[in-house]
């Protein structure tokens, strides 16, 4: 059951082989048992989860169950969830019980899914190792000395350790794909605007996008079917005909043109990662795909551009955390300015403060043109690079991360080194493209390696097809870490 796909679980529930209460109970029991070691969840609330499971059982019994009804899903603690602590991994919101549901949460509720708990994350989604969480770091279930990646590290760990069948994540610069890669699971960042950001605590509004994290591409498709769709409450949400993201899963890959960016296969990649990725690409050739070399000449600029734009937006987005209306407030202060200073000094961690400082600086009078405007121009160039590349290929592949999971503490004192872990994923967010990571083997110290699959705008169904066909021919996605 731990390794069952969402489709299989749904069939079991429909056939009354198991009830949602039993299923949820099993995963809750496992989560409770493993969480002290992995720290994947910030909140587990058996009572609420089981009540939802009970309601799901009623729905299923009355024949009104949908594809995810009764299935426990772990929710990243960035999504506002009515009646649940929604901390965003920060001391600042360590007392914030949300009075409303994010759009994504509402979608899962409407589908009759069960919320099994809120997953740990880097504080305000700022981090690539899950070490910036106020609730402590998450451990990589393949090797507890290693980080799970970030910022959706809790979700990646929960799925990898089979504490939940699937989870949600958010991706601003790689926060779904990099932890998926480091934990050996599948993760998808959709096209910007496909999933509503309403109720998802903002880090960098023009880059943030929610997406699913699961064992397989097939599971991701079912998750995305629930998550995607227009929402009038988000002005950047796209009005499109609903689609079934699982519709093309079974298509053969004959004739698929895979673009391999020259700039992705360079000496910065660890050899073990390169080997696994090349083996996966070899597998694709066997499946009938062709590879072509493409070029994304501005790749090296993605990290500096990102670290201007994302902090700029973040510095403004995080201004609302001022201790006035909700969240943490410093206990002692002299006046309003002192209250702001102390609240924000005490409530935010070091990485969040660093990004607020960078963002405030680049938006300041006299620097705005040199940094923010310049970065916006380069951002457009990067999108053009992809547009050029997609003239020659259907899909782009490369490593998700240049290395396997690094050790806890290894990079936490070196922010630049940490930022480089997202070198391959960031450009995708800047361009607003969809991309995913799937497990393609193991490298150094038996730590997982992820394959980065980048599609053109709105090509989610095709990307899922590409990933699914590989997973039919491999079993990396079914591997489970030892407890």
């Amino acid at each position, binding site marked *: 059951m731990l390794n069952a796909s969402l489709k299989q679980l749904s069939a079991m529930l429909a056939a009354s082989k198991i009830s949602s209460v039993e299923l949820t109970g099993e995963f809750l029991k496992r989560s409770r048992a493993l969480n002290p070691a992995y720290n994947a969840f910030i909140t587990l609330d058996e009572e609420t989860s089981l009540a939802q499971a009970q309601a799901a059982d009623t729905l299923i019994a009355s024949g009104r169950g949908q594809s995810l009804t009764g299935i426990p899903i772990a929710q990243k603690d960035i*999504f506002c969830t009515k009646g649940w602590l929604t901390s965003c991994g920060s001391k600042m919101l360590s007392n914030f019980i949300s009075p409303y549901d994010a759009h994504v949460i509402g979608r899962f509720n409407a589908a009759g899914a069960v919320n099994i708990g809120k997953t740990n994350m880097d504080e305000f989604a700022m981090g690539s190792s899950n070490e910036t969480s106020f609730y402590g770091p998450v451990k990589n279930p393949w090797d507890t000395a290693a980080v799970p990646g970030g910022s959706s590290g809790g979700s990646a760990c929960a799925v990898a350790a089979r504490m939940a069948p699937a989870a949600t994540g958010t991706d601003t610069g790689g926060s779904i794909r990099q932890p998926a890669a480091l934990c050996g699971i599948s993760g998808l960042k959709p096209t910007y605007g496909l999933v509503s950001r309403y109720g998802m605590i903002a880090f960098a509004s023009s880059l943030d996008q929610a997406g699913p994290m699961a064992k397989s591409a097939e599971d991701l498709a079912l998750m995305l079917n629930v998550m995607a769709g227009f929402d009038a409450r988000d002005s*950047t949400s796209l009005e499109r005909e609903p689609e079934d993201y699982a519709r093309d899963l079974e298509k053969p890959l004959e004739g698929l043109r895979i673009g391999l960016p020259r700039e992705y296969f360079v000496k910065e990649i660890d050899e073990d990662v390169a080997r696994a990725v090349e083996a996966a690409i070899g597998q694709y050739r066997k499946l009938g795909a062709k590879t072509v070399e493409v070029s994304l000449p501005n790749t090296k600029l993605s990290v500096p551009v990102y670290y201007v734009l994302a902090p700029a937006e973040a510095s403004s987005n995080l201004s609302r955390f001022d201790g006035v209306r909700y*969240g943490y407030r410093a206990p002692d202060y002299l006046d309003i300015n002192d209250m702001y200073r102390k609240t924000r000094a005490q409530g935010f961690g070091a990485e969040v403060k660093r990004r607020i400082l960078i963002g405030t600086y680049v938006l300041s009078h006299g620097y705005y043109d040199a940094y923010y405007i310049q970065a916006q121009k380069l951002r457009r160039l990067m999108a053009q690079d992809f547009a050029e590349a997609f003239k020659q290929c259907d899909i782009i592949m490369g490593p998700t991360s240049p290395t396997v999971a690094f050790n806890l503490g290894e990079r936490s004192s070196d922010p630049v080194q940490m930022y480089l872990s997202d070198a391959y994923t960031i450009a995708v967010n800047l361009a607003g493209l969809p991309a995913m990571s799937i497990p393609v083997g193991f490298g150094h110290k038996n730590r997982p390696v992820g394959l980065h699959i980048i599609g053109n705008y709105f090509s989610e169904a095709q990307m899922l097809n590409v990933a699914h066909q590989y997973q039919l021919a491999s079993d990396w996605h079914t591997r489970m870490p030892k407890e």
Partner: protein
Amino acid sequence: MQWETVIGLEVHAQLSTESKIFSGASTAFGAAPNAEACAVDLALPGVLPVLNRGAVERAIRFGLAVGAKINSPSIFARKNYFYPDLPKGYQISQYELPVVEGGHIQLQIVQDGKEQEKTVRLVRAHLEEDAGKSLHEDFHGMSGIDLNRAGTPLLEIVSEPDMRSSAEAVVYAKILHSLVRWIGICDGNMQEGSFRCDANVSVRPQGSDKLGTRCEIKNLNSFRFLEKAIDYEARRQIEILEDGGAIQQQTRLFDPEKGETRAMRSKEDAQDYRYFPDPDLLPLEISGSWIEEVKKALPELPQQMRNRFEHDYGLSMYDALALTADRDNSEYYEAVAEKLPFDPKLCANWVMGEVSAYLNNEGKSFDFCPLSPAQLAQLLLRIKDGTISGKIAKDVFRQMWAQVSAESISWKNRKGVDENLADRIIESQGLKQISDSNALEKLVQEVLTANPKSVEEFKAGKEKAFNALVGQVMKAAKGKANPAQVNEILRKKLTE
């Protein structure tokens, strides 16, 4: 030295939408604190703004009414600063590309009996959200925050520094105030803060074409304060300059009790607002067809109507201005004048005189005037045809007013109105003017007989005595004698 005052105004007009500019919460005034602040207004984590189409439509209306350019796209930007009643830590406003650019307002200035025209150019008008309110009383050692007003849509209308006196600034503000109500984008309620002015004031030697250093006086919420604040500020600056000092660029506040402005902050502590385009809102695109639609729905503008009143009705600029103070007023006037096309001036006098005074007294608008234009028109017709004198008409008017009940619907929608009310009162009380010469001659003769002293005085050259005799005749006629005829007969008899 002669000094010239240079003034530019920034007006914040609250747009009359039912809901806020970026949320669905109500904009109604006077609710319990924070009762009208929804998740978006409170800036809860994760909420997002969605632009209110009605606010944009009103901005377009304004742009068209002042002959401005409607920008498409225009961009919403974040103005970042910390303040307890600014929930997001930034205000969503427009910075580099406002929705309305340029335009102008035509001023009619009546000063010392002279009528002049003047054009004030507009720089821009942009959409933005209002902040909440901080309440410093009632909370011991703490401040209360009321976010009902947070997110209320505002149109900030910025003029060029084209005004040269506080009087001109007040005329500009009044015309703008009338215009925004006229085109239905703002209720203009200044007590409730729906229309607030900031004045940029500087002075320079007469004849100079260089602008002096300016000070901005914030939040003037009445025309009187606007005038006083500018006068005070100009005097203050002139005194400093005449004493050999220099003006410091400052933001100042007006203290209505002392009639003074005082410094709030100087340019040195001006904040860096770190404006940047709001990534939560897409650039605002306004299609040509939308602009056309709005244009079609625009009413005749006050400026056009003023010109028409002057040309077609032969009214003075003063009258035309007064009658176009708001749409209710002009519509009422036109309805009366339509029934009495041969004397629009008489109609104007009555609408601006009696009707306006009675309405003011009862705090009513022209729309809800208990007397319909048709009822008034009949009364005026009776003056014109000599049935009653103007003086008696005032009495009839008073009685008409007393007889109609208070109305809660506009005169435009009333049914079963008694259009012969004036005639019935004149008839039933026998107020018809005596124009019968025989009857009048008899009356005059009686008065002359009874007042020999006055007759003698008149004959001795005292013109005053004539007036006294007229008064006596009118008294004897209970006011109903035709005054012109009485004059004529009396003079004839006295000089016989």
